[in-house]
């Protein structure tokens, strides 16, 4: 029993984070679609996050409309006025800790801004941008 417990402790230490798992999983999917894929890209992610598009409401919006450009700070939801806590996991430890939540919000927000779901490549790029931006 003791050995099992110790083994369990070691295994949790060596396990990767939810975010790493999520990105690795996405990477595998992208590689299947495109064997020449070289990895997710911060710059592409930045463009996805900051460029404006005609969203679901027929209005020009970008991810920054609700999340702001400084991901270490809270920002007001453009439509409801409610404050959204910082997106960056550097200052908000709750971010990117649950795969279900990551998937749910990427799906919703891609639809809100792009009026469609994001591709695996886009999701990986934008998550890379959000989670590594200073």
């Amino acid at each position, binding site marked *: 029993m003791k050995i099992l417990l110790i083994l369990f402790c070691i295994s949790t230490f060596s396990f990767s984070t939810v975010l790493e798992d999520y990105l690795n999983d996405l990477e595998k999917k992208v590689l299947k679609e495109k064997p020449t894929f070289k990895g997710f890209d911060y710059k592409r992610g930045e463009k996805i996050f900051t460029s404006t598009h005609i969203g*679901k409401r027929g209005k020009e919006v970008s991810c920054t409309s609700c999340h702001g450009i400084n991901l270490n700070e809270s920002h007001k939801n453009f*439509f*409801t*006025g409610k404050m959204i806590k910082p997106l960056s996991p550097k200052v908000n430890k709750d971010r990117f800790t649950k795969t279900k939540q990551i998937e749910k919000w990427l799906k*919703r927000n891609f*639809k809100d801004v792009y009026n469609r779901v994001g591709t695996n490549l886009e999701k990986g790029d934008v998550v890379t941008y959000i989670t590594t931006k200073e």
Partner: protein
Amino acid sequence: MKYILILILMIGFNYADNDYGYKAYSKNGVKPVDNELYQNECSACHFAYQPGLLTSKSWDKVMTNLDNHFGTDASVLDEDYNLIYKYIMENSAEKAMDYKRSRRIASSMSYISTTVDAITKTPYIIKKHDEIPPRLIKQEEVKGLFNCTACHTQSKKGSYKESEIKIPNYGRWDD
């Protein structure tokens, strides 16, 4: 004596449970939200409106359109959806008639024949806000009638008393 009896009867009728239910509620406001999943999922984007602010028929309309929820995709996981739906249905306005505001909202629905899909479209809520200048409602700090918490300082507790109202750039509201 006869007159007094008739008088008492008349007063009785006046205050009896009419369409607006002047006497039949025992609690003020609406029942506060007491479901963590509901609270978390809804308040991610906006004030978690108490289920007692809308009838089950209307809530059903809202819940069947979550992928286009006031212009936003608000769809939730199937397992969460079922739990949230159940909670709303068990606590909607007509199931909470012991609360003053729920009773009045539910009763006011008899004045219209359509099923509304928003709290702000219920006759009672429209009537209660019809004297507020549109500029105060449309201003940036409020954005719209949907933003209860902007003026109703105790709305998170399910309380919507007039004495608790504070309109941004205006102050207390006296009818």
